[in-house]
Each structure stands twice: as C-alpha cells, then as structure tokens.
C-alpha cells in the first residue's frame, strides 16, 4: 500500500476549520482527524477544538530544568566553597546561604530556560528538512491542511477540500 501526502490551501481560517471539522466527522471514511496537520501563518489556539487536544511537553521540561538548576546550583556552589576554604571573608561562613540563594535562583532560571528551549526544539520537530509539500503562501496568509494517508484516500480528500473552496491542492506520493 502506497502512501500519499496531500496539502490543501485555504484563503481563510474558517474554511480550513470547516474542512477539518468535516474530517473529524469522518466525511472521508478511513481518514482520522489525527492524521491532519494544520499549517498556518499565525497561531490558532482554537484549532484544538477540531483537532482535539494534542499534548505539549514543554512545561514539564521547564520544571525539570528548574529543579536541576537549583539542585545543581546548590551543590556546585557549596562543594566549590567547601574545597576553597580560604574563602571565609568578612567574618562570613564558608558556605553562606543567602548569597548562594541568589546564584541558585539565577541557575534555576538559566537551566529552566535552556531545558525549555531544548524541549521546544524537540517537541516542535525543528532542525528537520521541510517536507516538499510546503507552500510559501502559508507563511503569508493562507491556511494549509496536510494529511499523510493511504493513496486511496487522496481523491476523496481532494473533493472535500474543493467543497471548502480550497485555493490550491497539491499531492505527492511517498515512496
């Protein structure tokens, strides 16, 4: 069974929304809304209403980063200070907690941010070669719907999209 990929471009979000809604309601039997990828020039949080909630793991990474940062910060600082004991200065203890807290706070944020960005890069599947069906119009003002389905579903989908005044439909076959 060969697989194909289809991309339809719509002039506005509402039409695309309607098209996805149709897919969601199995207007094309055998094609699930989970196969749909929406490509849009701006962020459409409301798309989830038809796509269903798809998870994002970024905040978990942020939490992990924050915890790592603060723990690492404490042990890094404390163990550095504990080996560098000429440091008692100004009558202060070797391991002065208040000033370490300041640095732990900074490390918390730094690690949280680095983890977040890493999670974003992984989660958003960046650093990958773009699929050939990409249309530059998407970055301008059109909304695209992309599906990766069995070849046999391409035609019904085309029909569906045309119903919704798709401006352009492209397709390709995946080897």
């Amino acid at each position, binding site marked *: 069974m060969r697989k194909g990929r289809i991309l339809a471009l719509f002039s506005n979000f509402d039409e695309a929304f309607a098209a996805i809604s149709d897919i969601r309601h199995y207007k094309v039997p055998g094609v699930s809304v989970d196969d749909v990828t929406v490509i849009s020039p701006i962020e459409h949080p409301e798309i989830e209403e038809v796509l269903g909630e798809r998870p994002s793991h970024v905040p978990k990474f942020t939490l992990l980063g924050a915890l790592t940062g603060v723990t690492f910060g404490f*042990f890094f600082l*404390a*163990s*550095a*200070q*504990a*080996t*560098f*004991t*000429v*440091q*008692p*200065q*100004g*009558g*202060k*203890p*070797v*391991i002065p*907690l208040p000033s370490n807290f300041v640095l732990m706070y900074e490390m918390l944020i730094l690690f949280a941010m680095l983890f977040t960005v890493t999670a974003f890069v992984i989660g958003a599947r960046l650093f990958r070669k773009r699929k050939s069906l990409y249309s530059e119009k998407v970055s301008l003002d059109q909304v695209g719907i992309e599906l990766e389905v069995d070849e046999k579903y391409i035609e019904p989908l085309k029909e569906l999209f045309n119903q919704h005044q798709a401006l352009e439909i492209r397709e390709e076959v995946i080897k």
Partner: protein
Amino acid sequence: MSLKNVFTDWSRYRKGIEEGGFHDYEHMWGMAVDLNKCIGCNACAVACYAENNLAVVGEEKFYKGQAMHWMRIERYWDEPDLGEDRVKEFNHHGANFIPMMCQNCNAATCEPVCPVAATYHTPDGLNAQVYNRCIGSRYCSNNCPYRLRFFNFYSYYESSWPEPLHMQLNPDLTVRDKGVMEKCTFCVQRIRAAKDKARREDRKVRDGEFLPACAQTCPTGAITFGDLLTLHTPGGGVGETKVAQMWRDHQVELGKTRQTKQNPELRGYRVFEGLNTDPCVMYLERVREV
C-alpha cells in the same frame, strides 16, 4: 570540589565570625596607636614607602589622587570633644593627627565583595591581598569605609624608581604592576620571616621579636604592635603581649560593635566600630589639657 566536604564539615562551614568562624586563628595581629603620643611627624609613612616598595607617583598623579600612601597621617582641625570649633579664632589645641593604616578588620567589608577572592582573611587574622589573583575590579576599595586600599592606576616601575633607585627595592615583596589593588599588610614579609625563624627554632613568635616598619620607626613609640590572641587566654602559658594588655587595659574587645566598658572614660576606641568591621587597630584618644 568535593561533596563529601560539604556534608562532613557542614556545621563548621556554616559558622560566621560571631560563632568563631572557620579559622583556627594562629595569631591575631593587631595594633594600639596612642594618639597622646603620636606627633604626626610622618616617619611611619615614609618608613612604609621604604619597606613596602610603594611607588612615588609624582605631583600630577598625586593631584589626580592616584598616590599610594598605605599609611597616612590624617590631620583634622576640629575637635568636637572639646567644644564647637567654628567660633574659635585659632586652633589653640593644635592639630588632630591620626595615623591610618589598613585596620585589618576581622569582619572586613573589602573581603566579601572581591569577585575572585583576591582578598581574604589569613589564619594570622590578617586581611591579605593576593596581588597575583587581583583582577582590579576595585570594589574592595569602594567598600572600605576607611579608604585604605590603593590601586595601581599605572605601571609605576619606570617612573618611580629610575636607575639606580630601583636598587633600594625590598626583594621580600613584589613591585605591583598596573591594575592591582594594594594596601598595608602589617608588613607581612616581616611576619613571615619571624614565623619561619620561630619554626626553625621550634618555638612561638615572641612578642616584640619583629615590628612593622611604622611601629619600628615611630619616634615616640606611639604604635604598639603584636598578637592580640593572648588576650583571650590571659595567663595561659603564653602570657599576654604588650598590645593585648593595652587592649585589656582600655577594655576594648574584638567582635563588638559597641564596647561595653566598665570605665567609660578609658581611652581605647576603634574607628567606625559601629559599622561592625571589627578592626584590629585600637586607637587611644588624644589628650589635651584645657
């Protein structure tokens, strides 16, 4: 870098000076300066130049305030303790001299602010400056309420010691290059030499065995230098040094922001004690017959 250290010595590392701190002090070098005897003659300051390779900066740089006077005699004209001075026509009680050298504070404000730990507290109770480590952020000088830290704004070697003046340089300590902070060390090179000698002879450093250059030259003997530590163990084997005795006589104690003297008329005081810098230099008040 060792996590083991952190946990095994945790409680020790968490002690500040008020609980004894981390240091097991071997000595606590300190001074007592009797302003009744100080005549403000400047001998100490020049002796300091001679001993510690201080750069002579010349008139223009002195005017710019880039001079290196580790030890300076401050001179004030007013004497608030003897009444309002503004109305007087003459300074009938003379000048108010005070020799200011690094006060070697135990809770030194210069120490915690150094980003690279170039200034720290030695087990001798000295406030040490590691020239090699200094990167010249100058924060320590800014945070010294006594303004007793001096910065090498230039490389003075060529200009200060034209041949053959450089032959006078004391080889026991460095000539500081530009970009380094420096200050009075209580003549640490003499301390080290005396300690080494004592170690070779398997004994403790004796009181008065050596003196910093200023104390040694002072024509009136206004500066007393020695180990303050015996102050805490009176009569305990070592005996009390002269300087410790003076501190005790004047009921001045380390580690206090305000002295609680039984006899408040005793002359001992420390400059800016209320800032909790805990200086190791005690001054004895100037005396005037009125």
